[in-house]
């Protein structure tokens, strides 16, 4: 197995259909097990965030949003990193499986980015007294999400499959700069009010808190759940969907050929 089960099978239809994640018994079993683990880890992470971690004395219970707000961003980063790697691999190997992997990473990463943005807004309301401010971190996170949303829209606007894949690969690589920028911005700009999880927070940060041991455990459990189980499982299922769609396209093309 190369990348989470991508097979090396090819056919002669010019790349329309490839047996990525072929329905072998082993892969099905592994995906089902991993999916169950993702559901279980989501439930566990909810328990740790809502009941195990203590209540923050300054912000109250809204601080519990932090555990999934940050972990969803980490999961999105994993998914976008997958797209970055897949883009490079596609430009090198020119095989469709890498394009499918890149597409799946963008879609899942975008969903998790939306979770990050919305939960951040909800957390900001009682903490910053505003649903949204054009803070450097918030702005860069919004640009990141919009950049990946544009990937999906622009990709669908290209008719030639080869050009579509090449464009997606290059775009997926370049778009990762917005992820790095979002991560780095609070370390480069002193005027941001967004706190940091890793390293010291900016001087103007509002909503900082001291992580005690229970909070660290809850945070670790959430990071593990989103980065190791939820994001990868969603990417894998999205790959399967794309492969099935490609099979349907191939069947449709064959059907039309027979009609003609």
């Amino acid at each position: 197995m190369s990348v989470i089960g991508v097979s090396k099978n090819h056919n002669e239809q010019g790349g329309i259909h490839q047996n990525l994640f072929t329905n072998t018994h082993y892969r099905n079993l592994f995906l089902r097990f991993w999916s169950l683990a993702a559901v279980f880890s989501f439930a566990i992470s909810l328990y740790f965030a809502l009941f195990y971690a203590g209540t923050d004395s300054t912000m109250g219970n809204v601080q519990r949003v932090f555990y999934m707000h940050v972990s969803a961003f980490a999961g999105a980063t994993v998914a976008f990193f997958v797209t970055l790697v897949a883009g490079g691999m596609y430009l090198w190997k020119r095989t469709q499986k890498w394009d499918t992997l890149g597409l799946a990473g963008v879609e899942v990463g975008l969903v998790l980015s939306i979770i990050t943005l919305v939960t951040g807004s909800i957390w900001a309301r009682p903490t910053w007294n505003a649903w949204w401010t054009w803070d450097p971190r918030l702005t860069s996170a919004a640009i990141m999400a919009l950049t990946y949303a544009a990937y999906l829209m622009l990709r669908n606007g290209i008719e030639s499959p080869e050009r579509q894949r090449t464009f997606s690969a290059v775009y997926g690589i370049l778009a990762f700069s917005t992820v790095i920028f979002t991560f780095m911005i609070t370390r480069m700009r002193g005027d941001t009010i967004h706190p940091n999880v890793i390293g010291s927070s900016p001087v103007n940060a509002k909503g900082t808190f001291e992580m005690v041991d229970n909070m660290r455990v809850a945070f670790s459990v959430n990071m593990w759940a989103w980065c190791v189980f939820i994001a990868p499982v969603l990417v894998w299922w999205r790959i399967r969907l794309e492969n099935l769609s490609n099979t349907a396209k191939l069947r449709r093309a064959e059907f039309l050929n027979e009609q003609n």
Partner: protein
Amino acid sequence: MPPVPNTDAYMVLGYIVIITIVSLYTLSLVMRFRSVHKDIEALSE
């Protein structure tokens, strides 16, 4: 020591949003799978 502010409603809203978005995306995958399966079945007939 100042009292802990009551921000429970925001916490509940946050977790409802998380569960809703994850559920909606999962549901969208299921719906798309069903739709493609139907297409394949129709083309096979």
